[in-house]
């Protein structure tokens, strides 16, 4: 049997977990989360600045490019705590865009862009398309070389998170028949290129991006020799951070439901005494603990060839099952209140659905694991 991974926990992870637990709780009480859902920008710029000042955007950026030179293992506790508070903002989009540049960018691109990201500039990735099968190298959008050497883009990307405020957008296209990545700035976009999408998780800001009419200099191409590696890395990094957000959310969702089950009374009894509710909560809890163990194994082993991929796919698959179940039961166990907008159960359920739809759901990752393990 292959090495499936193991738990390890660094001092940096411990410190960041402690800081993030406290900060996210203070900055993202659920009233704030709900207020920001109605806000066009969707998050609090002051908090974004604070995250930049704390160095969170540069945690996984090498020191040579203005970061602190840690890894995604150290980003995991941050995202876990953000997920726990349903905190909004372009943190994950930006972190993933930085990862794409670190693995796939040219030296010039890295030197130009990474320090800006580390200092607080938002960025994002445009990868998905309508007929996506979650394989990042299955790309329909194209770049064509014009006689003047410039690149003309065409096609449409979907689910581009935080695109309206991103100062850099990395887009996957097909060029000369092979996958390629290009770096856009807002100035490259014709007016109307971005359309805000209506998405199930209302804490998110997501956009469709029309590429037709965009023309770029050839130096916007990321390193052509590293595209495959970069796409693979993005896929795994995205799933790792999604798992982190989901595990945090699962914990919060369980705690939220337990609060209700400890206070609501029916038939003269606190409803948490009924085993029809208590035992499924225990199921939710044990799935949560298993998902969290997978998460911290994936964080620790992320950079290990082979094992990293196995551990990440297990983490995302376990998190999907745990979060979906906990949030689904949370709606049910709140009775009539669970059917309302005001009950937070729907917020968790919507977020779990969002994550399952991004970068592969549990069944997708299990299928991949079968290929990796058998």
């Amino acid at each position, binding site marked *: *049997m292959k090495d*499936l*991974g*193991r*738990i390890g*926990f660094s001092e940096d992870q*411990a410190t960041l*977990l*402690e800081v993030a637990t406290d900060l996210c709780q203070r900055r993202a009480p659920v009233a704030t989360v709900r207020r920001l859902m109605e806000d066009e920008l969707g998050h609090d710029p002051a908090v974004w600045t604070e995250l930049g000042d704390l160095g969170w955007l540069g945690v996984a950026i090498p020191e040579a490019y203005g970061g602190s030179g840690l890894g995604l293992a150290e980003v995991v506790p941050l995202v876990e705590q953000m997920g726990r508070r349903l905190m909004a903002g372009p943190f994950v989009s930006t972190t993933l865009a930085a990862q794409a540049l670190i693995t796939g960018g040219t030296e010039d691109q890295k030197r130009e862009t990474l320090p800006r990201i580390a200092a607080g500039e938002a960025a994002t990735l445009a990868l998905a398309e309508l007929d996506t099968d979650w394989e990042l190298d299955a790309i329909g959008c194209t770049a064509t070389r014009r006689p003047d050497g410039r690149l003309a883009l065409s096609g449409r990307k979907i689910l581009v998170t935080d695109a309206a405020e991103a100062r850099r957008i990395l887009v996957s296209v097909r060029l000369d028949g092979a996958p390629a990545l290009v770096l856009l700035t807002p100035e490259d976009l014709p007016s109307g290129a971005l359309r805000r999408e209506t998405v199930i998780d209302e804490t998110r800001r997501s956009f469709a991006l029309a590429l037709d009419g965009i023309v770029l200099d050839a130096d916007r191409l990321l390193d052509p020799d590293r595209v495959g590696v970069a796409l693979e890395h993005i896929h795994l990094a995205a799933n790792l951070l999604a798992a982190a957000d989901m595990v945090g959310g699962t*914990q919060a969702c*369980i705690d939220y439901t*337990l609060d209700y*089950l*400890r206070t609501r009374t029916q038939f003269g*009894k*606190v409803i*948490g*005494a*009924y*085993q029809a509710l*208590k*035992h499924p*909560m*225990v199921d939710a*809890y*044990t799935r949560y*603990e*298993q*998902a*969290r*163990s*997978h998460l*911290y*194994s994936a964080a620790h082993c992320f950079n290990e060839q082979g094992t990293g991929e196995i551990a990440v796919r*297990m983490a995302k*698959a*376990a998190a999907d099952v745990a979060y979906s179940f906990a949030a689904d039961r949370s709606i049910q166990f709140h009775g009539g209140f669970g059917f309302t907008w005001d009950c937070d159960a729907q917020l968790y359920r919507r977020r779990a659905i969002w994550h399952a739809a991004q970068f592969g759901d549990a*069944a997708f990752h*299990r*299928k991949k*694991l*079968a290929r990796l*393990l*058998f």
Partner: protein
Amino acid sequence: MSTVDPKDLAAFAEQADAWFAQNVVRDPGFMLPLTFMEVGTDTQFHFLRDWQNKVWEAGYLGAAWPKAYGGGGLPQAFQNAATRAMRKHHGPIMLNAIGLNWAGPLILEMGSEAQKAAYLKGILSAEDIWCQGFSEPGHGSDLGSAQTRAVRNGDHYVVNGSKIWTTLGRYAGYMILLARTDPSTERKYDGLSFFLMPMKAPGIETVPIRKLTGEHGFTQTFFTDARAPADGLVGPEGGGWKVAMRTLEYERGARGGQAGGYVSVGSNAFDVFDLAQRTTRGGRPVLEDPLVADEMVGFLMEIQALTLNGQRTQVPELVADRPQGIPLASKLMGTEMSRRLNDFAVRLTGARGAYYVDEPEAADNGLWARNYLNSFSATIGGGTSQIQANIVGEHVLGLPKS
């Protein structure tokens, strides 16, 4: 506890490794029980008793128990190294499970000096086999309602009643017995007392019970004016419930101090994976079926999660919110997975899943069907899964009592 010199530990581990390499008998010519609850024949019993005695004499069992009581007086790390070597070389199970894993640690913690001197060495050497008299025909999960009576009469108590599902009851020299010394207390728990009870005595009869596998396993034990010595009380008269609860903590592995080794070698997901890899259906590897493959991956993820859970409990920051959560839930998670996993293994074998032990065409001699049936021993014994779910729901999640 003395500190560990890494050099001494490494040397000990190396010796243990060599010893088990040389001394483990993997195929004695009859089916070895996979757990202490499956010991059904005298041949199995004598083989396992001799094996445990040999391991103890070599210094690889009870290595961390005090020297005065037959132990090795070494730090726990030494016993852990010996257990690892035992596992690596697939040594058979330790027979005297109830003595080694719960009665022994309990006596070490709460027993009198005389009790320690009298019993611990015999537990390690397997000279004295121990059994557990908690469950009764009328009271299993609701252990606090146990009715077996013990009435004080001078230097002993007179015991009447019956215990049931007594694992190793047929072979046991001693029993940890929960009996009612006072039927009139306001709280039912306050009338219970905890005894170390000799079994080879007049008035005690054990009747074997046939298990769902068709084999003989546990027994029903009948007490008719049997004598329990008063100096066999653990804790005060009427204080038995607390002692019994502590015993269950040892039994469920929520508390350490066990003598070492292991008392079951339940098949794990990797064994079932091995089965899956060598199983074909219609001439094709069964794992080519995407539905089968998906289920297999699910089990590999689950067993990996349980392993990782254990590792995570060693990192305080990662279990800070509910430090007792994983330990208290581990019996529930582990035993339920094992049950579902063995069911999956039977289904993997396709049409041959209809065969049972001793049918020459059965896959692995019917091991999987037998394992599946036996897996309920752990989802029922030691507190059923439903009771475990209540414990987790109430003590970990803070929900009110059902």
